[in-house]
């Protein structure tokens, strides 16, 4: 090995060792690379060292393939679009305070979706396309007044993607308004006594995916906290918005 250290152009094994990263990464200038290659050709020790370094580099590279998802997760796409669209609406209407999402996790959306699925169960959204009559019937079932009808209809149109900016603003202000027929109270009524049976009915369905089933469990927890008298805070509303968008985007 000692004899092989001096091969050509003054490069020694120690020099090649210093250059090995530049060599396997293709970052050496032409002259240095050629000198290193000449040395390697004549030096089995360095040849083995470079081959081992390349192999290890490949394996480190393959670790990426092992942790990278095959596609972009739908819930993440929905979350990003919800935030973007929320910000756009905020700029357009100045009605909806849409806080920037700082931490965002799957369960938060799951809970929001579950909430909407529970509403859907109560108001019959799981069937074929609804007519005005079915909406009205649903409202009668849950026993709330015209506000609920308007709310549900607007919500369903938003889910269908055909709500105007102005209507959206109205919907949000209605959601946020306290008092009978408005905001949290309305949702609470929708989810109250009928919400739980709606959830149970849903849980009995056999065509739900595991993630939908998880949404249901999260919804139950959310309803429990509502029943415990906890007022949904701004963050809960934000999650609802994200969930609605995710629902709309499928």
């Amino acid at each position, binding site marked *: 090995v000692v004899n092989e250290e001096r091969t050509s152009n003054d490069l020694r094994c120690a020099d090649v*060792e*210093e*250059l*090995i*990263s*530049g060599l396997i*990464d293709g*970052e050496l200038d032409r002259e240095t690379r050629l000198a290193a290659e000449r040395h390697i050709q004549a030096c089995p020790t360095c040849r083995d060292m470079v081959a*081992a*370094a390349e192999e*290890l*580099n*490949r*394996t*480190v*590279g*393959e*670790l*990426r*393939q*092992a*942790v*990278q*998802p*095959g*596609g*972009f*997760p739908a819930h*993440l*796409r929905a*979350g*990003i*679009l919800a*935030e*973007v*669209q929320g*910000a756009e609406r905020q700029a357009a209407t100045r009605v909806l305070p849409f806080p*920037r*999402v*700082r*931490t*965002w*996790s*799957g369960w938060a959306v799951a809970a929001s979706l579950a909430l909407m699925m529970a509403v859907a169960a109560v108001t019959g959204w799981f069937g074929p396309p609804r007519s005005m009559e079915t909406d009205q019937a649903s409202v009668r079932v849950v026993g709330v007044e015209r506000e609920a009808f308007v709310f549900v209809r607007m919500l369903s149109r938003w889910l269908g993607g055909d709500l105007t900016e102005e209507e959206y603003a109205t919907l949000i202000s209605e959601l946020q308004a306290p008092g009978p027929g408005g905001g949290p109270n309305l949702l609470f009524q929708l989810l109250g006594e009928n919400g739980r049976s709606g959830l149970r009915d849903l849980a009995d369905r056999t065509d739900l995916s595991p993630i939908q089933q998880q949404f249901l469990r999260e919804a139950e927890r959310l309803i429990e906290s509502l029943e415990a008298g906890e007022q949904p805070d701004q963050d809960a509303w934000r999650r609802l918005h994200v969930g609605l968008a995710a629902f709309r985007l499928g």
Partner: protein
Amino acid sequence: MGEPLPEAELQQWMERLGPQLIGLAYSICRDRVAAEDVTQEAFVKLWRRPPDGGPRAIPSWMKRVVTNASINVLQRTRRHGKLPEVEFDPALRAGDHPAAQAERHDEMRLVSMAMDRLPDEKRVLLILRAQQELSYAEIAETLGIPEGTVMSRLNRARKQLRKELDALRDTPSRHAADIEPMTGARPGQGEQE
């Protein structure tokens, strides 16, 4: 300050860069939820204020944003100097022979464990080069270090990785239990025993 990116373009970038960015974030911070948070914030940032230089500048800009945010997450959350173990995706090797799959998986798990033993700055350097294939200039820009030092830093990182790997191979009894094969059967299991 530029205009927000059109939503349709944002969606195209999500499809094109999203999986890779999640992989990058996860490689650094080893937390799926945090990796998704970081990726989401990066795309919202892209939408709000795309980088100067047009579409060509976006991929490396996004990698830089995600890398730095992931390093911040890592610094905030890393406990006791130990990272959670990498979760491998079993579907990735569905086409290989089961014994080869398991053997390769064991090797990758070993290299992954060796990576975990590196200091964060060395690990991130290797992730950026070997996994994200960033050039030395891009690595220097991403990490805010002089370009002239990237090669020597990578050399040191690779040298230490090799050392950690050799140490792990020399103590198989201590680590064998940690290395679970990806498939149900270990290589050779049932044939030799």
